[in-house]
């Protein structure tokens, strides 16, 4: 009982020390921060990092907007970065305190949602594409045709992840439009293709990692990290990056305006922009990270993984899906609702 009381007292007391020396409060996606990375950071700097989880950009934004949260760093997805900036919730970085800023890979430096990386340091990124068991279908898989014009071999065996933004934008780009388009011609073409293809899909469901590893599905619109895990179970599975355009996402670390431990936060930002540390981030959550030279520090099975290291010829087709206008959002939702029926 005494032990329990002591533990209680410690718990109650410890949380009031949020701004004590050698502390850092990181607000990040759950199961996304490598414990080894934090241990290394503490060993090098003496700063103890406390991680608090969130499970969606919206709940993170809501908590930070309310104020009084006590966090120093947050890791929003690209389309949320500008929202954080516009609301004045994150501050421009003092780059003199992040000498490793130059390690950000050139292709991730001048991103549309944070030109010149004034606000954020890359954490991890990934893509949405198609996972196909090439033992079943050996044709071209680097195209959205795989699920919009399902080849006979895959009819009734391919799944769609139920993510509106990914699916509708893949179809829109396939139809020749820009993501978040308001062009009715393009939207109509995308909708018709989706509705016509739907009978050929086995399902619209999550869980591709499990279902494809078990061989229940032979194809799926899927994320690259998940596809790598499938390939480790079923070697004939390949990942296609649709040449008509495919969504790319990136989560990046930003400094909160009301950060209490600013110096510590800068040390952490500089730390994660070091290739060997970025490699540790990837080794844990299994996504690429956007820091040049970090490949050398990734686990063997990731260094050569075609899902993680996107082949040069398909890189250009990757598109950051921006925050769509309310009108575009309305069109997308309408298509999605029709597709769900």
């Amino acid at each position, binding site marked *: 009982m005494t032990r329990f009381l002591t533990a209680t007292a410690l718990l109650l007391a410890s949380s009031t020390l949020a701004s004590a020396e050698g502390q850092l409060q990181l607000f990040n996606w759950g199961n996304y921060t490598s414990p080894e990375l934090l241990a290394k950071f503490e060993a090098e700097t003496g700063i103890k990092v406390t991680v608090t989880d969130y*499970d969606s950009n919206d709940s993170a934004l809501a908590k930070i907007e*309310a104020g009084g949260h006590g966090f120093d760093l947050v890791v929003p997805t690209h389309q949320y970065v500008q929202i954080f900036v516009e609301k004045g919730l994150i501050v421009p970085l003092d780059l003199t305190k992040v000498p490793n800023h130059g390690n950000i890979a050139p292709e991730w430096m001048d991103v549309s949602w944070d030109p010149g990386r004034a606000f954020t340091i890359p954490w991890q990124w990934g893509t949405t594409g198609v996972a196909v068991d090439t033992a079943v279908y050996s044709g071209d898989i680097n195209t959205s045709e795989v699920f919009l014009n399902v080849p006979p071999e895959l009819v009734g065996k391919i799944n769609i992840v139920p993510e509106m933004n990914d699916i509708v934008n893949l179809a829109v780009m396939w139809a020749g439009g820009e993501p978040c388009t308001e062009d009715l011609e393009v939207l109509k073409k995308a909708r018709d293709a989706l509705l016509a293809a739907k009978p050929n899909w086995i399902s619209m469901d999550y869980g591709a990692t499990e279902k494809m590893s078990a061989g229940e599905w032979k194809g799926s619109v899927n994320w690259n*990290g998940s596809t790598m895990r499938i390939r480790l179970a079923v070697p004939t599975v390949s990942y296609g990056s649709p040449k008509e355009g495919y969504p790319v996402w990136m989560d990046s670390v930003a400094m909160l305006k009301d950060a209490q431990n600013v110096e510590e936060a800068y040390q952490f930002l500089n730390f994660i922009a070091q290739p060997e540390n970025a490699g540790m981030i990837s080794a844990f959550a299994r996504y690429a990270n956007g820091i040049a030279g970090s490949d050398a520090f990734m686990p063997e099975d990731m260094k050569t993984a075609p899902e993680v290291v996107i082949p040069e010829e398909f890189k250009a087709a990757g598109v950051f899906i921006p925050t769509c206008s309310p009108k575009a959002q309305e069109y997308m939702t309408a298509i999605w609702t029709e597709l769900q029926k």
Partner: protein
Amino acid sequence: MAERSFSASHLPGFTVVALAVFTMLYVPIFILVANSFAVTYSASLWDGLTLDWYAKAWENEAVQSATLRSLVIALSASIIATFCATMAALGTTRRRAFKGQTLIYVMINQPLMVPEIVTAVALLIFFASIKVATGYQGLGYLIAAHSAFCIPFAYLPIRARLEGMDLSLETAAADLYASPWMTFRRVTLPILAPGIIAGAMLAFVISLDDVVITEFVKSGGQDTLPTYMMGQLRRAMTPEVNAISSVLLVLTVLLLTAFFFLTRKND
């Protein structure tokens, strides 16, 4: 007997409906528990039994601290909630009926009726302003929030017990010149005790399971077991989460079984 009294079990299709309902309720839970013993990472492949995931969850420091935090919050909140609920139950039953009684019931049971997300958002805004003003970031907010929404769960069994009690015992005590406090201490409280314990256990379980309000109220480093598990969903689910869920399930079932025995009519 001329006519059999009405019984739902004699309606056509009773067995089928009952079986279907129980299947839907319990099959997913059985699958979850079974998967927590699976060897492979992947949830739908089956190639052997293991306790590894339990060991892994047990050794995980994040799980340890989240569990301890969950227990501290649930224990504190259930004690506070039960105390308030007992007083509320006494105040609403041990007196003549009064005007606005229904309104008071509704107000006490408010957390049962207001959608959790509404309470969560309201608390987020309210607590945030206190956090800004005072700088205090501790567990106090979570304990206060949990105490509040646990009150009706503690209140209902206590009130039920009070209403089912034989008032003549209290009257007899008063007739024998026991002071009101003495009557309460020596007569009412001992008879009421099972109700209080049942209420406390129900409150404990409700606090232990809460996700939405906790997610919105928690400060830095204050993940509880359920919010920690929610956070795991971004990546592939592992049997480790299944193992933690199974342990939570067993704990909840044990407490609810005890609750059932304590609130049985003929004890």
